[in-house]
């Protein structure tokens, strides 16, 4: 009696132990992978969903409820995530007035929100996307050569920008982040020409980004840079301010007490 009951109980215990063992094995091998896949998919779709909310609130008045554009703004179907990174990441969007060109201003969205908006726009028709990883670790010398060939004609050899026709202008590059510079080359915002990966490879774009950061942030020796336009304004200031001061000092030395 006692032995049969023991046998019955031990049978249940073995089945339970075996179940627990298989369950533990399954959890150990299969669960982490499936969880990662699950959450990754959810994260992506969550970003698109959150981006859609942000878009409907902040952008749809001009760009339309389905990105189709309207009287106030162009269609965004197929412009790609990199266009969003440039326009929103440099503060140009949301637009504050219908001027000839959108000026850089304070950024209204956080980086996370910009990524959500970008994911949403990317999900509608695709388009150029920023590569993952560092964007400013290119080769400096190649970047300088490419910058002078492709960028300096409008943005100035020191990245100070310059005038275009009818009130438009190439903006100065001093405040632009690596993401903004890279996405500008990819997306060709407003009147800037577009530079596809066939024209400038990702490595060449990274080289240009590094060079722009080098000339605008790295090599600043301090003092008044006078717009970094070079020897012409510096000479002008020397002539007007410096010589005036010298004449004044000469008059003071020559004056009788």
């Amino acid at each position, binding site marked *: 009696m006692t032995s049969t009951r023991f046998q019955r109980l031990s049978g249940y215990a073995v089945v339970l132990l075996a179940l627990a063992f298989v369950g533990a094995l399954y959890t150990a091998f299969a669960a982490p992978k499936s969880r990662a896949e699950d959450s990754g998919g959810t994260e992506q779709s969550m970003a698109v969903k959150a981006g859609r909310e942000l878009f409907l609130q902040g952008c749809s008045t001009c760009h339309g409820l389905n990105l189709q554009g309207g009287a106030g703004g162009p269609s965004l179907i197929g412009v790609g995530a990199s266009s969003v990174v440039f326009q929103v990441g440099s503060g140009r969007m949301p637009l504050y007035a219908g001027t000839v060109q959108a000026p850089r201003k304070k950024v209204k969205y956080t980086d996370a929100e910009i990524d959500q908006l970008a994911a949403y726009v990317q999900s509608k028709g695709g388009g150029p996307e920023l590569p993952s990883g560092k964007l400013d670790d290119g080769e400096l010398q190649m970047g300088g*050569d490419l910058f002078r*060939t*492709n960028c300096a*004609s*409008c943005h100035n050899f020191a990245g100070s920008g*310059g*005038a*275009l*026709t*009818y009130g*438009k202008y*190439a903006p100065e590059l001093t405040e632009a982040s690596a993401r903004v510079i890279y996405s500008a080359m990819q997306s*060709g915002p*407003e*009147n*800037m*020409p*577009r*530079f*596809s990966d*066939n*024209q400038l490879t990702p490595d060449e774009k990274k080289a240009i980004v590094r060079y722009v950061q080098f000339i605008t942030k*790295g*090599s*600043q*020796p*301090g*003092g008044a840079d006078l717009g970094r336009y070079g020897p012409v304004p510096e000479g002008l200031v020397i002539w007007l301010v410096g010589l005036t001061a010298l004449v004044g000092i000469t008059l*003071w*030395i020559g004056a*009788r*007490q």
Partner: protein
Amino acid sequence: MTDDNKSIRERLQAPADDEDANTGGDSRGSDVTENGFQNTDSRADLAARGRDDSQTAAPSAPAAPYELRHADLDAAAERSAERKVAFLFLLSVVGTVGFIWVFFASPYKYGESNNDWFTPLLAFFMALALTGIGAGAVKWAKSLMGDAEVVQERHDFASDPADLAETGQALVEGLQVTGLGRRKLLTGTLLLGAGSLLLLPLPLLLDLGPYAHKERLLRRTGWRKGVRLVRRNGSPVRLGDLEIGSLETVYPDVPGGDVLADSPTMLIRMLPSQLVPRHGREDWSIDGHIAYSVICTHLGCPVKLYEQQTHHLFCPCHQSTFDASHGAKVVFGPAARSLPQLPIAVDEEGYFVAQSDYTEPVGPSFWERKSRRFS
């Protein structure tokens, strides 16, 4: 204690018999009024004085009356001025020490935060060092040094008549020694040699004349039929490399093509529906790709400022604006002609090639190429 060591104030307070030793300007002022200016030019006067440096005793212009300064009269003011000068000199020392301190204690390093202040601080301390010395010296001279005006005569500018005659004689003798007048052969060949030297610059002027015109130097570039359009790094451009709204600067694929000054060309791609080719040039562009010379027809600046929405090509030098979608015709500015267009095609491997050289001279007008408005 001699007079030289005394201050002006002490000398002014000295007894009257000391006044002869004072070499100030006042003592000679009375001489000047007696001997007028007109006497100083007379040759007799100069001859009498000879050519030594004894002119200091000569009649001179009236010196301004000596005005006593605060520091000349007041011992306290003099000490105060002395202290100010010394303070300025010490300020200069501070500047020098500060300069060295900034340079070594806080050196410029790439990418560090003190960089914004490195150059301005160096400049500030250097200015302090130089200004301290300079301002101190000026203050010293203005307040403490004797500033009585002294008149110093110059000697006569004309040479002595005897010297003039002697020099003339020496020149004539020299000419006789060379025998330039007597030796007809040498004189003649010398003149011939010197005259033919004038022909040396003529070859340099040839480029301005009919020679250049005949060689068509200004009318041709590096482009030929079948020459590929390559980037600066030598890679050829393939149909499809450019997206709509792109610009690529291209050079002819010939040796040294990237440094030929007349050959840089821009290849632009726009929507084919936006491109309006000029009459007779319908087959010069392919699928919205069109190529123009980079060199402005006004004064030759590079016109590479392309606006992909308006298709304006903008010259940064004098604001000439060309419409890339309408044969690069001038829409604004001083340029007189459209940018020359390069006829392009695609070879069997899919790369862009030139159909021919430019059909008109690139760049600004020259004598044989008149400016014609909006040709």
